[in-house]
């Protein structure tokens, strides 16, 4: 590899990483948190008890839906397991006469068509919150904007990340020697080593997560393959996501079989747990029940499905295999989401995600550290440098503080408050906006130290609040055998302490060049001017 090639790739690496690095940081941090989305779904609803008997919850869901929406067009039940807060259910009412077929499922986001069935089989009364699912959605749908724009932006940023990773690899002349090198307290060199270490250490993960992330958005970003082969994209959808043929409503009422029977049969046939049940035309003679296997049990997220007669419980349909390419895509999405991961592997995913977040952050800080050492006049950096420096503070230090504020809003906002779930998220953005203002007005080092320290304090405070004011504090959770909740509290404590330590280090940091520059300015008061 010639020097020119390596240089060109180094240039590409810097700019593809920097230009949307702040978007990338957001995606990485939200995505990393989202690995624990189910745990956070529970952590953010401390009123809820842990699910001990999933079948009891399922029975309760069926009872609830039969009472609440007996004539609905379809019911959807997500089967609970020990990690979920309960069984979310929603239903689609019959279309009114004259009304069109509507957009697919329709009404999923509406308040009045959904509920959460708790561990005891009854409708759960917990504080209204988006829970951990918010972080999952946030990392590709962002917020306050149409989801298509957000997904294009995130998709574009992800492609730039892939380019940054690949160009970062080829630009490396001695990848092994560089990997093991760690020079401490040497300014730009130390930042470079830290960036290299976090990047190369989890390189398999970073490559995988970035490419598979693009695959999850493939339908939006690269629809042209479908256009080349199909005039109607629904034909492609039917091939990839086969569904049981729908039949019209019979008009004759017939009691729906106990879903637990069907669930047990499905689990026996599949040899794996199930995760969702869809009932079409419940209470009618033509009722059909589609059961999907849980993605927690296999690598492929597109799991096998079974179709049953809702009245007799007879198996009517099995999803046909979809072929190697579709399997591959499904496995890639499964690797990205990591839903198959048990506790140990999930923690490894989380650590790699943290590594990725640190990789992005250290890369952007490295850019300013490197440029600062080359500034002709450190007191008056050029506009680009100032923008990057301030954005770094606002995003790298500001967003974590916003997230901590979201958790605090989850604890402190009044339970009966209207629009509570949205206000938790507004709280995050309000806090983040405040940090952005701070990042612009205060001197950088003070802003960094202050924001990182505040984040640390807020995070450390959360498990303390839980101990004092909820009955799911660290010790109570351990006593109940609830390792997830205890682990989340412990993680917040540890991460908070880490932030505090980093803040202290930043506050004490005295760059060596500062003294030298002051002396240099004292001896050459006039700026050199080029005479023409």
């Amino acid at each position, binding site marked *: 590899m010639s020097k020119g090639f390596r240089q060109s790739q180094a240039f*590409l690496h810097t700019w593809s990483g920097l230009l949307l690095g702040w978007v990338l940081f957001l995606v990485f941090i939200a995505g990393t948190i989202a690995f624990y989305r189910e745990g956070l779904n529970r952590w953010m609803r401390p009123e809820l008890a842990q699910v001990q008997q999933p079948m009891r919850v399922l029975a309760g869901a069926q009872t609830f839906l039969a009472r609440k929406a007996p004539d609905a067009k379809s019911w959807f039940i997500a089967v609970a397991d020990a990690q979920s807060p309960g069984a979310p259910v929603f239903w689609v009412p019959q279309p009114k006469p004259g009304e069109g077929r509507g957009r697919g499922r329709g009404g999923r986001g509406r308040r009045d068509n959904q509920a959460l069935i708790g561990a005891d089989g009854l409708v759960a009364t917990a504080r209204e919150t988006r829970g951990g699912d918010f972080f999952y959605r946030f990392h590709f749908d962002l917020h306050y904007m149409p989801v298509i724009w957000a997904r294009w932006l995130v998709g574009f940023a992800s492609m730039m990340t892939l380019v940054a990773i690949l160009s970062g690899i080829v630009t490396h002349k001695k990848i092994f020697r560089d990997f093991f090198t760690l020079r401490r307290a040497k300014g730009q060199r130390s930042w470079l080593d830290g960036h290299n270490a976090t990047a190369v250490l989890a390189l398999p993960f970073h490559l995988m997560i970035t490419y598979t992330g693009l695959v999850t958005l493939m339908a939006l970003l690269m629809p042209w*393959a479908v256009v*080349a082969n*199909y005039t*109607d994209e629904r034909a492609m959808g039917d*091939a990839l996501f086969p569904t049981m043929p729908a039949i019209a409503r019979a008009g004759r009422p017939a009691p729906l079989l106990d879903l637990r029977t069907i669930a047990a049969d499905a689990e026996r046939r599949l040899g794996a747990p199930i995760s969702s049940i869809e009932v079409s035309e419940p209470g009618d003679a033509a009722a059909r029940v589609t059961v999907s296997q849980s993605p927690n049990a296999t690598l492929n997220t597109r799991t096998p499905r079974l179709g049953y007669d809702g009245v007799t419980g007879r198996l009517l349909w099995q999803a046909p295999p979809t072929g190697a390419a579709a399997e591959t*895509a499904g496995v890639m999405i499964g690797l990205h989401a990591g839903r198959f991961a048990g506790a140990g592997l999930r923690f490894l995913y989380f650590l790699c995600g943290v590594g990725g977040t640190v990789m992005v952050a250290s890369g952007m800080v490295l850019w300013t550290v490197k440029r600062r050492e080359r500034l002709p006049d450190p007191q008056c950096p050029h506009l680009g440098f100032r923008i990057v420096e301030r954005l770094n503070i606002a995003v790298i230090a500001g967003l974590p503080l916003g997230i901590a504020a979201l958790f605090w809003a989850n604890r402190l906002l009044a339970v009966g408050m209207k629009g509570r779930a949205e206000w938790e998220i507004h709280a995050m953005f309000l806090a983040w906006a405040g940090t952005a203002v701070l990042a612009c007005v205060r001197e950088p080092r003070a802003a960094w130290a202050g924001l990182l320290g505040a984040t640390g304090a807020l995070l450390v405070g959360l498990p303390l609040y839980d101990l004092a004011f909820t009955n799911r504090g660290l010790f109570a959770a351990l006593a109940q055998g609830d390792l997830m909740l205890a682990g989340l509290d412990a993680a917040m404590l540890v991460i908070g302490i880490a932030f505090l330590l980093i803040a202290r280090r930043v506050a004490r940091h005295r760059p060596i060049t500062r003294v030298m520059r002051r002396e240099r300015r004292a001896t050459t008061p006039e700026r050199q001017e080029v005479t023409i």
Partner: protein
Amino acid sequence: MMVLGQNHARARWARRGDIALRVLAAVPLGYAASSLWAMALARLLPGTRSGATVAAALVALALCAVAAMWAFAARSGWRAVWTIVLAGGVAAAVAWLSIAATGRA
């Protein structure tokens, strides 16, 4: 002195132009070429129609990244542009011929 200053300025703008061409080659042109290759591969790859479609899209995502790397590795900005346009053109021809011959589902 004046000439030197002008030469410096000209070199700076030439460099900016070169980078601009490479960015053009990488982002809109690279994406277009990769999309055209997605179409060509969807027509050419063996197996079921839906399988070939998925496989083509998977490959095309990787091609986007490769196109960007090539755009900056090429010896000049112009070279980056015409090579990527050529690559896209070949794919477009292949896809068009295939669709004209056997049609779509």
